[in-house]
């Protein structure tokens, strides 16, 4: 471990601040000449901002070695966990903003788009480091509200608007549930700060365990919404299908990760299994099982690639939920959490990449069904190779980091060595077999099938291609180079659990 130098106070929040400032900067740039704002400049600034944030996060992580930094009387904490996820958010944001350069060419209100993305990213980074229910709720909303707008961004596209509506309504409902849960927990423990809650749990009154339990389950509801897990997943298929593809990429990767990081922190710090009298592990096991099964089975027979990806993203939420469902007393908790975190990192790249490829297809005006992708490899081999990497990595074949991370999750479930986790492990086996089937349908369409009509792709957009190729390379390199993250993840998890 290299020596940990203290980074005082707000400096530790650099990534968050950078993102927020970038958002405002974008608005400023736009306000100079709203009509003629160059998309290159906006996209450039946004990308640069998120890159800087990425660099900052990395720098702080290396510098402090993930030493927890408590800020604002412990309302926020910057530690390995938060920085790790900040890395995920910012890298996804970078890819998305980069790709949006081409995607948004025809649209107006580009600046607003980038601003909203930036704000959402800011919210996510805050979620990652929020250490109390208050900050958690506020940052969660800060991440959600821009997302609603982003999903509905194509104002004249019925699909986009419908998606936005559904996302918003379910979101509002869920946040209401979330807050109510918080209020109940507050009622029992009399505090909102995670560690304080944990310390209070010991001396809760007899009758209050029920109240606490209801509260905890409602909080789970709030996170389930963010991570698109059953039974709060309903928004996801429509939102991902209807939204502009870069937004779908952003939500399905970053926003999901944000939901998980806050869940990790809340349930390991605030409601540790040892003290809390509520069996939330079982709850998560059930959710994981139902989520992955529903997601994959529903994805299996889709005709629309984007919707298939939406369901598959639900399925992956189910996979990662294993990281919470396997936090049994016997388990090696750092291993379990670490596996989840690693999968989220890889997922951040491969899933974003897949959605960006769909964005590319939309850009070309290729249809959305599997048939429309027939013979695409003849037209755009490079992009199709990238897409193949993404899909097979998602399916857990050793062409990208998704292979290792998925198997780490299975290993975690086995390691926990309880009936429940074994059930999860086998469920994952069946589901990923199914997922292999539907992912390879896309690959089949691209490489094996012959094109239906003689279709010519319109140009090779730089930004999208760059983003896709970067994502593909990252996904591929994460197979041999996953070691860069495993240590960090496991250490972060360990230091958070103590």
């Amino acid at each position, binding site marked *: 471990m290299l020596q940990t130098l203290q980074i005082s106070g707000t400096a530790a929040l650099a990534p968050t601040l950078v993102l927020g400032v970038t958002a405002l900067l974008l608005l400023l740039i736009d306000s100079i000449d709203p009509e003629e704002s160059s998309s290159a400049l906006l996209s450039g600034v946004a990308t640069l901002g998120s890159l800087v944030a990425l660099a900052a996060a990395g720098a702080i992580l290396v510098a402090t070695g993930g030493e927890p930094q408590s800020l604002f009387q412990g309302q926020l904490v910057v530690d390995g966990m938060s920085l790790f996820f900040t890395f995920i958010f910012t890298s996804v944001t970078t890819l998305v903003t980069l790709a949006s350069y081409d995607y948004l060419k025809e649209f107006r209100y580009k600046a607003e788009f980038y601003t909203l993305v930036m704000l959402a990213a800011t919210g996510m980074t805050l979620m990652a480091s929020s250490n109390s229910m208050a900050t958690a709720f506020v940052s969660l909303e800060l991440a959600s509200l821009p997302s609603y707008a982003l999903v509905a961004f194509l104002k004249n596209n019925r699909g986009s608007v419908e998606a936005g509506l559904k996302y918003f309504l379910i979101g509002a409902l869920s946040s209401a549930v979330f807050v109510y849960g918080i209020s109940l927990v507050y009622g029992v423990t009399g505090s909102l700060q995670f560690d304080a809650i944990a310390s209070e749990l010991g001396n809760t009154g007899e009758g209050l365990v029920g109240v606490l339990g209801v509260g905890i389950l409602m909080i789970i509801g709030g996170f389930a919404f963010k991570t698109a897990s059953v039974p709060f997943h309903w928004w996801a298929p429509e939102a991902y299908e209807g939204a502009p593809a870069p937004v779908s990429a952003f939500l399905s990767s970053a926003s999901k990760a944000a939901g998980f990081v806050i869940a990790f922190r809340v349930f390991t710090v605030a409601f540790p299994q040892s003290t809390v009298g509520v069996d939330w592990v079982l709850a998560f096991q059930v959710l994981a099982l139902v989520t992955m099964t529903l997601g994959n089975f529903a994805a299996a027979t889709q005709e629309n690639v984007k919707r298939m990806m939406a369901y598959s993203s639900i399925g992956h939420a189910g996979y990662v939920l294993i990281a919470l469902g396997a936090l049994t007393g*016997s388990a*090696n908790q*750092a*291993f379990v959490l*670490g596996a989840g975190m690693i999968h989220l990192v890889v997922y951040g790249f491969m899933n974003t990449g897949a959605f960006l490829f769909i964005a590319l297809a939309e850009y070309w005006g290729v249809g959305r069904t599997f048939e429309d992708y027939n013979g695409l490899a003849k037209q755009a081999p490079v992009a199709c190779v990238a897409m193949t990497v993404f899909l*097979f990595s998602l399916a857990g*074949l*050793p*062409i990208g980091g998704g*292979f*290792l991370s998925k*198997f*780490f999750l*299975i*290993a975690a479930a*086995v*390691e926990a*060595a*309880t009936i429940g986790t*074994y059930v999860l*492990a*086998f469920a*994952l*086996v*069946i589901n*990923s*077999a199914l997922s*292999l*089937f539907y992912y*390879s349908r896309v*690959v*089949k369409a691209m*490489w*094996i099938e012959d094109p239906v009509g003689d279709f010519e792709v319109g140009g090779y957009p730089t930004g999208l291609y760059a983003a896709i190729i970067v994502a593909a390379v990252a996904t591929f390199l994460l*197979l*041999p180079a*996953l*070691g860069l993250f*495993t*240590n960090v993840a*496991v250490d972060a998890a*360990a230091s958070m659990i103590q």
Partner: protein
Amino acid sequence: MLVELLLAACLVGAVVTFVAPDRVAGKLALGISLLPLVGALYMYATFDGSGNALFGGATMFGENVAWLDLAGYQLSYHTGLDGLSLPLVVLSTVLIPLAILSAWTPIQSRQSQFYGLVLLMEASLIGVFSALDFFVWFVFWEAVLIPMYFLIGVWGGPRRKYAAIKFFVYTNVASLVMFIGFMTLVFALGDSVSSFGLPAVTQAIAAGNLGNVAGVAGSTIALVSFVLMFFGFAVKVPIVPLHTWLPDAHVEAPTPVSVLLAGVLLKMGTYALLRFNFTMLPGVAQDLAVFIALLGAASVIYGALLALAQQDLKRIVAYSSVSSMGYVILGLVAYTQYGLGGATFQMVAHGLISGLMFMCVGVVYNTTHTRMVGDMSGLASRMPYTVGALIAGAFAYMGLPLMAGFAGEFFIFRGSFASTVLPNNGMALITGVAMFGIVIVAGYLLFAMQRTLFGEFFSATEYDVREAAVHDVAPLFVLVLLIIALGTAPGIFFEMIWNASQPILDNVQSGGEAAVESLATVLGGVR
């Protein structure tokens, strides 16, 4: 280090081939694939390793560098060859160039992609046989699926998409289940292992560290993980009744791919069975011996019967592969020098022989454009050389002495007949039954040959049937010569195999037995 050079040669070669123009891809790939061949032969020439890699034997040509660590478990990139893996590496590197050569005629579209994928597959195969860390091994193990999926799916026959996805998903499920099994084993070892290295795990089990976990007896854990892993590998082998992906894959795959599928891919399953189930958990293996042996015999007889019922030459050979793999299972479960050694030897022998058979069928198909027994006859008068090779291959398959097949089968029979894993000579009985396969195999091959090769020439398809090009026929005779060489001097491989399988038996004598007793109590009525 040499192993890494081979891998690098294949991977770089694959990339080069991908970008090469289709015209030259075939020749280019052939040239590239000669590098690993030379390397492998050099390794064979200079090999002086001893013992079994999993029992700390001296392995060669490998590397061991830390890869990543995960909550107290060290994953390292660890490769190395011992007497059991080197023959299979040689087999792969020998078959690939021949397969590439035999692809020149049938593969007429997207050649550069085809040959690139073949080279990718070679890399994965070499990796599978040389990896000594579980995750590294598993990466290669699964990586084989990807090129195979495309090779079947893009260049295959009419039902190629169905066959490809079936192969893909079926074997993938198997690997996942096997993964759970192995993880169960490793985690049950607790702190006694801090890595997924195969030697470490093996020796930890041999040292009796398979303790109780969460109130579950170590022997029960061993049983569970054995069964899970066995299922996983049995699909790959394949063992009846998990074999149904094979005929579809074979029939749809283009000839060169069938050659590799039968020649090397099936051996992955038996190799893994040997390395994992039968080396790590000999106690369980011996307690379940009766089931395993019966499965092996069933594969032999049932597979042969199925082959007897087929009209498609490729299907015949495909099912006969199932049959031959059954012998390997018998040899493995016997736990005798000749059994284990013969099984490994038979892997190589069958690799060459089935490769030869598929190539011959392919050459016939290239000229007649049919594989149906009823659609042709009297080929001997039109394409004598191909037919000569085909006859040679068929007799090798029937276990003609002084050809590789006989050596392998005889070693297995001798080993498993004398085996004592089952009470009152049960193994001898099962072996005797399974040996009837040598009659059935003669039956279906001779019938097929009589109807297709001999008699008046006739072909249901309107093609000018004449002797195939040199580059089609040459690989056939190369294989014939190799088969005869291996059959007359089995020591070529059998010696190193013998030495490498010795430690397994020593372990059975010492460590394995304890596990047997404790497990016998758990299993109760199994015997």
